[in-house]
């Protein structure tokens, strides 16, 4: 089997911004996280070959390097000649064909027909072979779509926001199935999503894409724990973000909340904002480090957490049990200097 390497370096002029992406994928699943319309789907489509970039290079190395696209050498392989599978958001199952016929679509003339029955077994589709897509449940449809792709034997699988159009219950169930599939898949995969939980769950490495540009690149844990950039912080779920004014190397004032904070890392000149995760506040005494008053705060009960909004706009979340309905907001909250994330704006 050996090592695979996918190299992507493409540029494309889009309506609202210019797409400029540059990355390499050696193993596992890469996530591309970003707000809707940020160029994520366009990137996948360029790798698959169903859309052409304006310039750049896309290549896949298995035992040797195969150039899929090179604008300088005028190479542009058709999607049919690339070993890239694509899972569309709506699965794109062919409505006029049965499950069996759909799965068989990925086979070429020389392929062993028994691959179809292998796939049927592997994806638990026994009994459904002669059904049509409209007669299948959402979960069954996803399994057929994946079986069809795996039957084709791709080296790379691209997943375009696979759970976006789904209700929560189905989403949870299908996520687990997809994770199992990807764990057993020997090739490379790229998952595109605007949902940070999905990115966190599926992907070892992450690209954060906004307005066509990569604003963060690294392991998922690294990016979530240390976002470094305001936009990335927002996408990883950091809700409390404020502009700051530096007081000295370890002290600053959060301008949006009118509160002074002490931080653990030295504040460098490019720092323009701070972020504090809603779970990182704790009840405290009046005289402590990084104290915030809670006068005129409002609270909202959620099934498993309390959501408190302070008068200055800060969000605080506290876990709770489903049967707890009373909560006294403490007069003061504090946050550990280590939990104040220093951010810069790009």
């Amino acid at each position, binding site marked *: 089997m050996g090592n695979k390497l996918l190299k992507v370096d493409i540029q494309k002029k889009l309506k609202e911004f210019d797409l400029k992406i540059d990355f390499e994928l050696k193993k596992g699943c890469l996530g591309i996280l970003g707000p809707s319309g940020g160029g994520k789907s366009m990137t996948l*489509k360029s790798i698959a*070959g*169903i859309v052409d970039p304006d310039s750049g290079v896309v290549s896949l190395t298995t035992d040797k390097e195969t150039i899929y696209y090179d604008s300088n050498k005028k190479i542009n392989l058709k*999607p049919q000649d690339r070993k*890239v599978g*694509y899972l569309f958001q*709506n699965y794109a199952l062919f409505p*006029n*064909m049965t499950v069996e016929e759909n799965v068989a*679509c990925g086979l070429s003339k020389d392929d062993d027909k028994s691959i179809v029955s292998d796939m049927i077994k592997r994806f638990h589709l026994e009994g459904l072979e002669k059904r049509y897509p409209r007669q299948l449940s959402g979960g069954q449809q996803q399994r057929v779509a994946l079986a069809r792709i795996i039957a084709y034997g791709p080296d790379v699988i691209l997943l375009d926001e696979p759970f976006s159009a789904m209700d929560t219950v189905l989403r949870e169930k299908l996520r687990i199935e997809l994770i199992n599939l990807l764990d057993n898949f020997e090739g490379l995969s790229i998952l595109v999503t605007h949902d940070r939980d999905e990115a966190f769950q599926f992907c070892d490495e992450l690209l954060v894409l906004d307005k066509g540009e990569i604003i963060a690149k690294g392991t998922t844990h690294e990016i979530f724990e240390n976002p470094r950039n305001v936009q990335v912080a927002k996408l990883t779920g950091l809700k409390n973000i404020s502009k700051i004014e530096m007081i000295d190397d370890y002290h600053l004032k959060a301008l949006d909340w009118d509160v002074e904070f002490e931080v653990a890392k030295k504040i460098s000149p490019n720092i323009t904002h701070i972020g504090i995760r809603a779970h990182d506040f704790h009840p405290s005494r009046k005289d402590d480090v990084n104290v915030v008053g809670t006068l005129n705060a409002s609270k909202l009960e959620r099934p498993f957490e309390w959501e408190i909004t302070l008068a200055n706009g800060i969000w605080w979340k506290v876990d709770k049990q489903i049967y707890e309905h009373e909560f006294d907001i403490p007069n003061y909250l504090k946050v550990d200097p280590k939990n104040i994330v220093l951010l810069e704006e790009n």
Partner: protein
Amino acid sequence: MMDWTPIGISMKTASLSILITFFLGLIVAWIIVKIKNDTIKIVLDGIFTLPIVLPPTVVGFFLLYIFGVRGPIGRFLIEYFSVKIAFSWSATVIAAVVMSFPLMYRSARGAYEQVDSNLLDAGRTLGMSEWKIFWKILFANALPGIISGGILAYARGLGEFGATAMLAGNIAGETRTLPMAVYSEVAAGNMMDASNYVIFIVIIAFIAIFIMDYVTIRKEKQWK
């Protein structure tokens, strides 16, 4: 004595012309749908739609200009194949094809554009050839629209009058199709004979509409 030849002529003409128009329309619509340049697309679309927008006699005028004895194609065919188009039966087919083509083309194109383009792209990423994608995905899923288009085109070809009169003339027993037979009989005052032809045409029309609606509704139910 009733002249039955118009029925035979119309049936032969309509059958051959729908065969040509059907496949021509399918293929041309597929080519146009794949064109990426918007300007070229619009221009070509205009050319292919023109025959149904122009008055049939005007189209007939152009056909005569091209296929007539002194026209570029007409002259070529006479010189090299000893085949004369104008005022012969083949002219009825040409007139019917040209006049019914826009209907087939537009119906096919509309039907193609209704098919989710993700389906076509999915086929491509699964290694399916463009031909396989055309027949097994595009054509198969556009079928209701294609069939209605085909039936409309057939009816249009069957009912062609203006362009046929210009290029094929109204030669009894050779190029007098049913619509022209109706005209001739009424002009000669034979309302009875005319009405026989009319009844035949009306029956064919009803059958065509029935088949079209039946197939369309059944296919749409099957795949919704």
